């Protein structure tokens, strides 16, 4: 009789515990947030090799030939320059974050508006095309920005005194990449002004005309 009592007690406590734990586990799986991947700061051997390859490609592409005096000048001054380049590298990360958010929000607003207007029966083909083109421009910007970040990173991390020619080639490549990124950002701004705004204006006119037409009918 005593053993039966103990068995009853044990079962009555274990069963709800199992149910509660199952429910809690299910809630945890549905509410887990995705973890943000963290980037490493210590360059690995593979990253160093990749950097050397890029520097060599730039040297081969630009075919720079520095005089002895130019090399000596660079060797003497490149370390101080790298200090400024490191601060510019941090600024570039901030540029990436801010632009990513701006462009993502822009696409999201336009997409939401297009969905609502299409549900009302308006012709949103032009807006759809504009959104697609905008997405392509943003992808180009992101690609060029990644190339610029690599160039700045190589410029800040390389041994400029050991390879002044490579430093000079990387500096020139960084300047070119930076200019390209600026042009991409300006292109997006111009596209908004020249294409997206007029498209939205046309849709606004359609909206204004629609209630009047429904009233007449």
């Amino acid at each position: 009789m005593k053993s039966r009592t103990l068995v009853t007690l044990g079962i009555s406590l274990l069963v709800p515990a199992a149910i509660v734990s199952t429910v809690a586990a299910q809630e945890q799986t549905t509410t887990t947030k995705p973890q943000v991947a963290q980037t490493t700061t210590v360059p690995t051997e593979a990253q160093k090799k990749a950097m050397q390859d890029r520097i060599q490609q730039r040297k081969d592409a630009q075919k720079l030939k520095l005089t002895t005096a130019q090399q000596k000048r660079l060797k003497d001054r490149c370390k101080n320059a790298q200090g400024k380049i490191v601060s510019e590298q941090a600024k570039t990360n901030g540029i990436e974050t801010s632009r990513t958010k701006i462009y993502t929000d822009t696409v999201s607003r336009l997409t939401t508006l297009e969905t609502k207007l299409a549900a009302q029966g308006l012709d949103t083909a032009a807006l759809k095309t504009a959104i697609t083109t905008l997405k392509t421009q943003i992808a180009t910007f992101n690609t060029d920005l990644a190339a610029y970040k690599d160039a700045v990173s190589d410029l800040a991390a390389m041994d400029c005194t050991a390879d002044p020619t490579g430093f000079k080639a990387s500096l020139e490549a960084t300047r070119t990449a930076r200019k390209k990124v600026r042009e991409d950002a300006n292109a997006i701004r111009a596209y908004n002004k020249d294409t997206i705004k007029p498209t939205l204006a046309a849709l606004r006119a359609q909206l204004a005309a629609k209630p009047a037409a429904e009233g007449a009918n």
Partner: protein
Amino acid sequence: MDDIKPAENKPTATGQVMDIQATKPVAEATAVAPEAVVPQPEATTPDLAEPPQAAETENTTTADTPVDAQPGEEAAPLAAEAPKPQGHKRPLVPIIVAVLIALSLSGVAVFAYLNQQKKTETKQTSQTTSPAPSATSADVDETNQAIDTDLNSANDDADLDDNTLSDTNLNL
């Protein structure tokens, strides 16, 4: 007969050593030597802590070695040795409390599960069945303005100017 050796091979009053089998006829043993020390076999009487008792207690000691004991006679003493405690009550209160706790925990778990299921169902139905709200001219204007504000907040010409990486600025 040597497997059970008496504890003491003390001679009896008659000068004879008594073995275990001699205990069988108890009455005869008592009659022969009432004051004699009855040797007790150690192997078969493990709970004999006391020295051998007098003839009066021989029955109880020999009862522990039920070689020839009667079943009926042994069952009664054994039953008497472990009497059930009178007035013992069943532990109903702890059982009831445990059952109530179990039921409440189960109820809470089921309620939480159903609540969660309800939430996921309403979320799905709202996404699939609820119609998209209609847009007005104000919505179009608001979108236009928000995009302009966002794009103008980023000064690309200043953030990505050429002067930052110039030889002059880097002192090269």
